[in-house]
């Protein structure tokens, strides 16, 4: 699963980057920032920029996904101790994101 998502993220980044480069040439760096889902300019953004942004987001969520998969694996094996540890890590990650945003 991790390999699939890593590959998908890479593919999105590469496709978006190559598309943007071929369509607009080398931009004045640093170029446009990655698009946020709450950004009002989301609908007007270039499809290549959306592609690149989606690839970066996939990579950003991949570590949490790994922890979630570990949690599900432990639950399936009834390894409650390790499942609790994985759950604590996920909660800490969520708290960290909120704290950093503040």
């Amino acid at each position, binding site marked *: 699963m991790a390999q699939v998502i890593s590959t998908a*993220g890479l593919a999105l980044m590469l496709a978006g980057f190559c598309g943007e480069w071929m369509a607009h040439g080398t931009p004045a760096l640093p170029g446009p920032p990655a698009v946020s889902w709450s950004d009002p300019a989301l609908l007007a953004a270039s499809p290549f920029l959306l592609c690149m942004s989606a690839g970066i987001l996939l*990579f950003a969520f991949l570590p949490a996904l790994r922890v979630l998969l570990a949690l599900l694996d432990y639950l399936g094996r009834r390894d409650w101790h390790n499942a609790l540890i994985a759950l604590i890590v996920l909660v800490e990650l969520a708290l960290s994101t909120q704290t950093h945003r503040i």
Partner: protein
Amino acid sequence: MIFLALFLTGVTAGVLGAVLGLGGGVFLVPALHLLFDLPMRTAVACSIVGVLATSAGAVAFAPRGRGADVELALRLEIATTAGALAGSLAAGLLSSQALGILFAVVAFFNAGYTAYRSRRRPISAPPEALFTRDYRPRRWGIGLSASALAGMLSGLLGVGGGIIKVPVMYSVMEVPLGVATATSNFMVGITAAVSALVYYLRGDIYPMLAIPIALGVFAGATAGVWLLTRLRVSWVRAALIALLVIMGVQMLLRGLGLL
């Protein structure tokens, strides 16, 4: 041409990061800031995407039996994330000079202890393996404390995750060095994910810069994982000690205001 240069910088960071269990940020941030003249905030944001790519490449494509100790990683990550949370809340209490000196002390101690442990090994002991299943992590108290410190320092200084965790796992907790680097790669990805989301939502990540770096890092990390299975423990250990000393000197000079 600049995209090729960014890609090659990423490859270098990815190889070194995967072999030594670091996220690559310790190389990327100064390289992007000094060589490409990027503002620090942009360099850090690009570096974080590179760290994610290091973790993704090293973890997802690790050969069977050469991967991270997930149970160990999750236990230590509890302390790391708690340390990072505490670090972000305490960011205003310590000066950057004090943090630099603190980091230097930790780096020198880790380098010295890693070297000391390697010399204590009996001559009659079997050759040390990078990867083995025959181990049991020890000294959890020190390991968890060091992880909390690593989390705090990485949040405050932008470095210090793997550079602290790998020698502590190897020298103090007696985890095989290859397992320690693989486990560190798993952990730095988790730590970087939080920062990545925050930078992303702030609009600080520029894909046209970050993606050539991330692609290079991913390629380098995947190659680095392959390379790690062919290296001797003594080489990896020597490289780790050298890097700790270099980083310690750099941070000490910065802390003393000489750099």
